[in-house]
């Protein structure tokens, strides 16, 4: 790795000052993507700002309304070992358990997975499906941003100069709702999604009240296929509606052909996985109260 200076601020204000003073600096959370990119020369910061000592970035808490605040540096193991997360957001716990292996999960954060802005990031379609929001802090103060608007190109996110992701906010699960993330990989574990699908449904007396579907690895960024989910609103919960949503999701995908799969194969997988993710979310919604 090239020379860089290291700083480990203990407060958000100090982290923002450093960020403003060093425009070329990069933020270090778990480092499981960043250090790989620095080793292969793709990223060459002059300063690395280790944000793991900033309290706001380590928060994992539930507010009075039942919404989850997940600090941007909270490692995956804390997510899946948290009893409240397992109970109220089981899909989030399950997804944190499939990002890398155990060693990676000891360091890697969901916030980092998002900031890295890989089209294949497993947690991002799920965060989008759950209606997640980013809390972003910068020189001009704070602003919220919907997760679906955060990734703007492969490896690029919507953070402006001097800004940083502080935390993620996931609303309390609605009554009769369910969420699921599903990916296809050729191995059993430790692999990059050929396609991933996150789906959330809210049911109401045998009908869909609303649905949100997002895809991984089929576009330059994780892709929110809003219309595919919106099309389910008011429809009866049956095979026909689900099939139509799966077809709409597959049609919205713009996959490429690479070593992991052809565009055609990916589009087909989009349909299959959307259908299965919806079915799993529906099962969960029917079991919830």
């Amino acid at each position, binding site marked *: 790795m090239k020379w*860089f*200076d*290291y700083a480990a601020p203990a407060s958000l204000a100090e982290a923002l000052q450093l960020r403003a003073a060093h425009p070329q600096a990069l933020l270090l959370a778990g480092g499981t993507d960043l250090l*790989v990119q620095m080793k*292969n020369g793709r990223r060459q910061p002059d300063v690395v700002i280790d944000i793991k000592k900033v309290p706001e970035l380590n928060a994992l808490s539930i507010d009075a309304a039942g919404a989850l605040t997940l600090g941007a540096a909270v490692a995956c193991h804390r997510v899946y070992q948290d009893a409240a997360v397992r109970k109220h957001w089981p899909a989030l716990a399950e997804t944190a358990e499939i990002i890398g292996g155990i060693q*990676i999960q*000891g360091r890697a954060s969901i916030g980092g997975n998002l900031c890295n802005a890989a089209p294949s990031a497993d947690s991002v379609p799920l965060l989008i499906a759950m209606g997640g929001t980013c809390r972003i802090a910068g020189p001009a103060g704070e602003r919220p941003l919907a997760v679906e608007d955060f990734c703007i190109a492969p490896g690029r996110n919507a953070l402006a100069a001097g800004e940083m992701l502080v935390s993620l906010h996931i609303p309390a699960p609605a009554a009769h709702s369910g969420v699921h993330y599903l990916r296809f990989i050729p191995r059993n574990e*430790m692999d990059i999604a050929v396609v991933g699908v996150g789906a959330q449904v809210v049911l109401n007396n045998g009908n869909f009240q609303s649905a949100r579907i997002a895809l991984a690895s089929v576009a330059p960024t994780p892709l929110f296929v809003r219309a595919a989910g919106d099309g389910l609103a008011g429809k009866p919960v049956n095979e026909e509606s689900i099939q139509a949503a799966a077809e709409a999701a597959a049609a919205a995908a713009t996959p490429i052909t690479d070593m992991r799969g052809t565009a055609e194969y990916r589009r087909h997988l989009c349909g299959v996985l959307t259908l299965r993710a919806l079915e799993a979310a529906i099962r969960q919604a029917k079991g919830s109260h």
Partner: protein
Amino acid sequence: MPGKIHVNTTINGEATEFLCEPRQTLLECLRDTLNLTGTKEGCGDGNCGSCTVVMDGRIVTSCLVLGVEAAGARIDTIEGMARGNQLHPLQQSFLEHAALQCGICTPGFLLAARELLENEPDPSEERIRWFLANNLCRCTGYDKIVRAVQDAAKQMREAKA
């Protein structure tokens, strides 16, 4: 050019200090500065697990940790696994089951398996394979490693009972 940073840490239970450049990984600091060469480098990018160490009670790949991040942390390496001449049951079991050939992957497998058995004394084979998925072995084909872990788990349970 930035200078070296003085790092105070605890390694295998002993207060330890070392100097490192911010760009050095914990793996480099352990091997090249502290001469703890039991921790191995395979891929250097988080895939193979041969550089596994325990950091604050949790296994991590030391090739993706900066040496400076060890400040204030507790690091446990393979050098701390045996008690003097007495091997850990997992080490003994790896020997008996011939669960190693070249041995590059072994320190990482041993530390990962120890973390598993400390938290889950009776894991299924599927669970063992899942837990050890961040550790790659290009020699053994894994089967002997899994048998060695199962056997060590059994012995450790019996020793406790």
